[in-house]
């Protein structure tokens, strides 16, 4: 058995430092405090920690049986000798102390990941259950964001032509909310659907289209999004992912936030591909029921720019929102030639193209 070690003993009841002599016994530590007739005896199995202090300042020993009390032994060999007497306990305690926390961290991470993946699937039912008034409020905000102060094009004949086009498509069977269309003075050839049945067509699309059937096709596609509640579901997804990130991150680094949001966006894109296909399906049905030829939609797709050198199975096509024009065009072609009703007469078509007060070309 080893001899006695010099130590400092703190009894946990006062802030005094008492010189002591520690002996490693068979069952425990015997602590003889100088100037006191009493001695402390700590059983090895009751020790709660024997940690090395930084800077080779010795070993600090604490015991569950003497809360707040501690013993500091400076001699470097003390810790090794103590450990030989209690190797079993040390390892177990270490795992007990950290095991719980590790499990907790893993559980939290699993929960957060589950929440991230649940948001896209919850978005659809939530969007359908959303009261019409909320939907409309949300739509106003999104539409304002899209328009961003640009001019809304209005001309009597042109607006009437838009309404004619909309009325021709039998969407009301599938959607009971209000639907509105606006043309915005913007050169890009694009169209959007916002929550609350708000469809926005950009002037560039009217300029690029070569026949009213193409515009009707795009309109039917956007109506497909509306019918399927995609815009609201999308808003819920974007806001949900962002809110979740904001909540768990508190004040933390913005870099991480960016990384997290990019991850969230990739998730949204993956979902979007399915939305586009679903909207196309609805569009083809609407066109079919209206007796309008879906070749217009196919023609429009054919003129859309393809993503750089990307075929259907390339990685790029997976990450872009409006790709796969080939497949969509093919699908539209399949059902072409079924309808023969003109979407608009020549007069109305001309009025629609001039709705922003410019000649048809730019």
């Amino acid at each position, binding site marked *: 058995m080893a001899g006695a070690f010099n130590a*400092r003993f*703190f*009894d*946990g*009841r*006062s*802030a*005094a*430092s*008492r*010189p002591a002599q520690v002996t490693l016994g068979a069952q425990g530590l015997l602590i003889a*405090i*100088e*100037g*006191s007739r009493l001695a402390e005896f700590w059983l090895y199995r009751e020790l709660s920690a024997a940690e090395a*202090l*930084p*800077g080779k*300042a010795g070993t*600090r020993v604490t015991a569950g049986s003497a809360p*707040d*009390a*501690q013993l*500091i032994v400076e001699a470097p060999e003390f810790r090794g000798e103590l450990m030989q007497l209690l190797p079993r306990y040390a390892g177990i305690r270490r795992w007990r102390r950290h095991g*719980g*926390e590790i499990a*907790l*961290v893993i559980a*939290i*991470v699993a929960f*957060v990941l589950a929440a991230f993946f649940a948001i896209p699937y919850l978005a659809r039912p939530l969007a359908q259950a959303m009261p019409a008034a*909320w939907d409309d*409020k949300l739509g106003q905000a999104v539409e304002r964001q899209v328009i961003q102060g640009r001019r809304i094009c209005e001309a009597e004949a042109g607006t009437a032509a838009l309404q004619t086009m909309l009325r021709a498509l039998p969407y009301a069977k599938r959607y009971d909310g209000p639907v509105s269309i606006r043309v915005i003075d913007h050169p890009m050839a694009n169209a959007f659907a916002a929550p609350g049945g708000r469809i926005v067509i950009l002037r560039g699309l009217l300029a690029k289209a070569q026949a009213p059937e193409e515009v009707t096709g795009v309109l039917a596609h956007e109506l497909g999004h509306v019918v399927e509640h995609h815009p609201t579901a999308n808003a819920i997804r974007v806001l949900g992912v962002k*809110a979740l*990130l904001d*909540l*768990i*991150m*508190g*004040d*933390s*680094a913005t*870099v*991480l936030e960016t*990384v*997290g949001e990019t991850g969230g966006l990739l998730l949204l894109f993956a979902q979007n591909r399915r939305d586009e296909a679903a909207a196309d399906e609805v569009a083809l049905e609407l066109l079919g029921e209206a007796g309008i030829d879906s070749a217009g939609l196919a023609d429009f797709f054919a003129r859309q720019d393809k993503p750089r050198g990307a075929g259907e199975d390339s990685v790029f096509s997976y990450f872009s929102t409006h790709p796969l024009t080939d497949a969509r065009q093919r699908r539209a072609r399949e059902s072409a030639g079924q309808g023969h009703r003109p979407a608009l007469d020549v007069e109305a078509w001309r009025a629609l193209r001039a709705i922003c007060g410019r000649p048809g070309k730019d």
Partner: protein
Amino acid sequence: MSLSQAAPAPGPQRLRFEHRGRVRALTPIVLINTLLNIITLTLYRFWAKTRVRRFLWSRTTLLGDPFEYTGSGKELFLGFLIVLFVVVLPAIGLNVAAEYFWAEEDPVRYGTFMFIFYMVALFLLGVAIYRARRFRLSRTAWRGIRPALTGSSVIYGLINMAIYLANGATFGWAVPWGRLRLMEQMMSHTYFGDRPFHFRGGAQPLYGRFAAMWFGSAAIIAAIIVVSIAVAGAGQVLTGEGNKLTARIGVGVVAVVGVGLVLMAALYAWYKARELAYFAECTGYQGLRFRFDATAWSLLRLALGNYLIIILTLSFGYPFAQLRNFRYLCRRLEAVGEVDFAAIRQSAEARPAVGEGLADAFDVGSV
């Protein structure tokens, strides 16, 4: 009693804190924390903070005996969860509802709501600071004895809010008084073991330097405006000289603004040094008085270095800044006088079960 006689006889002492933390020893902790923070979308931060605190506390010694941080990451995480559900989520809900129902229909009511909302947030900020300190002290030990913070965090929150408003109303002239009042509120409720700290002193000694700083800063701002206008005016007169001169004028204006800002920072450091030293003078514990040797130049270096560390490491290196703060504090703080450690008994204050949720939400007291 025989036990207290065993302690060294009390007499006038100079107690110095020492810090032995090294950057090299802290680096692995920071690297692992950063990695785990990224993997867990920062949810590991509670455990990361705990590891850094253990490091910083354990390397601080007084009379050769180390401090100890006894808190756990779980306590911080639970504190965060509670505040998330009790404060943050309801606050977001209220905010969204108010915007939805009032923002357009009733701007007056909405404005009133937002004013109250921000007042409550300001109040909670003070509460957060106080509660975080209470938690941290309750998880600290030296020689096995714990400090404590008693008193009401609500009162501290109210004082903090009132002082904030007073600062705005007096163009900053309430700052020295307000800071002293908050410090007094905090220190006179701080204990080590069963004995309280005390804080005595008025704000008058701070106002000399404060006035010099205030007028100095005002003069610098005025000078920047005058010089910028003059330079820009001269540039317009000489526009015929071409782009080269215009570019030079731009550089000149930027330089003037930069020099002005540096001078203002130096003035502030000069005031802050006095404030820190004075707060230490006002503080006592048993027979001990405190002295803090803060100087303007050293404070400026400390702040600038920490700023650079945080910027360059995208705030992941924050613990290195904390390490520098600890070193600064330990190198320059000392306690002089008499104290009988054997007479200090263990604190009997109840300890909070979880901690710092509010502080996490407000990003305060991130030590």
